[in-house]
């Protein structure tokens, strides 16, 4: 039995309840046992007391889109190294994409991953089950067995299902089990061999463009199929103004459709590619500044529900290539919170909205008990300094891969302590 933990003098920010006030939280047996706003809590016998003066106490972040290299590409990332990076970034749970070798398309593998993660990872690893066998977009997996084994949702990761008939069947069947279908919206024929956002900048660089319609056409289709089948549908990530409009319209009619956005599409735009910087080669592609502004507005208005890191470790071998030949993806676990706080510091989005998109909204979409500061909820908590200035340095990255799109970026906001199930799993070095 671990010691009780009392966190006092904190600014408690809990999006689920709309709380933003000074207070104290008591943790016992891995759960939040008491919350006091504006009043002290008596120190239980033997309790560890943390004076969180000047810090924000928030639910630990839930990251809905994380790629790891385990199993299959452990040199890129293991559950352990991803867990270390997540803990340092204030992420207490992440959804692991099924794009591994082998693909997570079988209940036995989900079960293995959960046990493996418990043994090696500092944070909660939530496996997502593949929608189709081998992510091939052809045959459905065993949704029921995947769910029994512990899969939190269904997704084909970075793959997009092209057949509307198959997707309709998938959605109907997933609705049986109440599982959320998380889908990457990409029309592969329109995307073609495009490698960045279509437009003047791609033309200048001589690179093939990806039109926004490669995203909006499958999104519009998916939203109609979601309404037809009554399933819980989550557009894994959207990146442009037209997609925000589609989500906004669909949400007025159907409350069970939601959408996510990568922190990259909120913080960066296509100009960051500069002269063929492959760490900015991403899927969804970075779009124009107008699109970036539109997704920020979508987040503000509620058309976009969640923010994720799209953490995608890639090694030098596949990144130090000519742009068109390099792999997509950037890591992001350690920079997610601070990059998202840029929106708060700039005055674009308020703190509660930004945190909601990384705590209570993902929890609601996935049906998790965490993501909130409430009596009886798991004690997955973070303490962070909203204004702490730091600069991203490749040398300090905990992830096994170093493909960050924030190298050298000056950020404000740092996690001082990460608590998972009542246990401190990360402390900022200066504080320890």
């Amino acid at each position: 039995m671990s010691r009780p933990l009392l966190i006092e003098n904190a600014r408690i920010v809990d999006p689920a309840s709309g709380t933003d006030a000074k207070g104290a939280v008591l943790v016992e047996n891995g759960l939040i046992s008491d919350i006091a706003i504006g009043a002290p809590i008596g120190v239980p016998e033997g309790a560890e007391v943390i004076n969180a003066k000047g810090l924000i106490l928030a639910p630990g972040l839930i990251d809905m889109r994380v790629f790891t290299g385990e199993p299959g590409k452990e040199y890129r990332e293991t559950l352990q190294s991803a867990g270390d990076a997540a803990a340092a970034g204030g992420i207490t749970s992440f959804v692991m994409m099924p794009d591994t070798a082998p693909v997570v398309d079988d209940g036995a593998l989900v079960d293995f991953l959960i046990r493996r993660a418990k043994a090696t990872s500092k944070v909660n690893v939530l496996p997502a089950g593949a929608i189709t066998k081998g992510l091939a977009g052809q045959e459905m997996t065993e949704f029921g067995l995947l769910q029994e084994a512990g899969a939190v949702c269904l997704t084909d990761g970075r793959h997009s299902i092209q057949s509307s008939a198959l997707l309709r069947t998938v959605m109907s069947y997933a609705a049986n089990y109440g599982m959320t279908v998380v889908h990457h919206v990409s029309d592969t024929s329109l995307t073609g061999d495009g490698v960045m956002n279509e437009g003047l900048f791609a033309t200048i660089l001589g690179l093939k463009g990806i039109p926004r319609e490669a995203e909006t056409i499958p999104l519009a289709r998916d939203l109609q199929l979601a309404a037809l089948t009554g399933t819980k549908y989550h557009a894994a990530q959207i990146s442009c103004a037209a997609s925000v409009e589609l989500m906004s319209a669909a949400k007025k009619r159907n409350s069970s459709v939601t959408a996510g956005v990568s922190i990259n599409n909120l913080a960066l735009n296509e100009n960051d590619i500069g002269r063929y910087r492959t760490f900015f080669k991403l899927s969804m592609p970075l779009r124009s500044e107008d699109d970036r502004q539109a997704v920020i507005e979508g987040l503000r208005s509620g058309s976009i529900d969640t923010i994720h890191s799209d953490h995608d470790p890639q090694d030098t071998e596949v990144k130090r290539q000519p742009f068109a030949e390099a792999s997509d993806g950037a890591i992001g676990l350690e920079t997610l919170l601070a990059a998202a706080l840029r929106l708060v510091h700039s005055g674009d989005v308020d703190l509660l909205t930004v945190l909601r998109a990384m705590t209570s909204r993902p929890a609601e979409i996935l049906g998790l008990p965490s993501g909130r500061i409430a009596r009886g909820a798991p004690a997955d908590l973070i303490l962070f300094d909203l204004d702490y200035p730091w600069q991203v340095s490749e040398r300090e990255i905990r992830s096994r891969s170093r493909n960050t799109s924030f190298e050298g970026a000056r950020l404000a906001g740092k996690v001082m302590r990460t608590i998972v199930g009542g246990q401190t799993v990360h402390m900022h070095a200066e504080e320890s």
Partner: protein
Amino acid sequence: MAQARAAKASTTAAGSSGDFPPFNQRHLLSIADLKQHEIVDLLDRAEAMVPVSRQERKSHPTLSGKTQINLFFEPSTRTQGSFEIAGKRLGALVMNMSVKTSSVTKGETLIDTAATLNAMRPDVIVVRHSAAGAVELLSQKVGCAVINAGDGAHEHPTQALLDALTIRRQKGRISGLTVAICGDIANSRVVRSNLLLLGALNVRTRVIAPRNLLPSGIEHLATEVFTDMREGLKGCDVVMMLRLQHERANGRMIPSVREYYRFYGLDAEKLAFAKPDAIVMHPGPMNRGVEIDPAIADGVQSVINEQVEMGVAVRMAVLDALLPARSER
């Protein structure tokens, strides 16, 4: 006629780098990197190189003792040959390396190749690659000068320089002219380099193509955009035709060769819309009967062969400009 004009325009003596101020660029990767005065400087240097190739002894050994590697990841007869002759006339040791590779055949990466060649201590590497940005990437990994001989649909700077030199010799000036470029604009590196170079020299640029061969945002790069070839050619001083890849005329991009030729092939009837003294250019290799009537390609207005000659002069000038300044330090 063209010969007479060319002879008049050329300078009297073979030039050498000593006659010009130092060229302050380490590589030639793109026209976008060059300032206007650097473009003019390279054209003047190239002009001075023209007589070298017209001498009995075609030798101007300023690169004696230097090693030049032509690294071509994409097959090329003309450009590779042009760089080879340019290097040899300047006295350099020239090695040709043709690397058959594609993104599918995973083997040695571009970076590995760069490191390997770098260890052989060349003085300059001339690179062609099918991927945009590949030459710049390679330049970051070697200790010698790098010349871009074409990277994907990005740039082909020596082509734009030789085109400009040809225009200047034919027309006596560049600034103020109207140049129409017609064909597969979307996939052409020649277009991008030319639009940048001509734009820097105050040329009125036009691009002409069917809509599906016009890249997004092209209206910001060219002065005017046309889909009707006759409209686009009206009153222009220079007509630059581009090669249409056969595989694009298979119904996926363009319905057929005959339809393309009917609307976008350069024949006498369409050429009549340009100024009477307009010159006709083509970067080669030509598809006769696809984008150009053979009679026009071989006609009096064609300067296609002079382009090839100027190609050697431009490449000699670029090699000469990039090399001495570095080794004499």
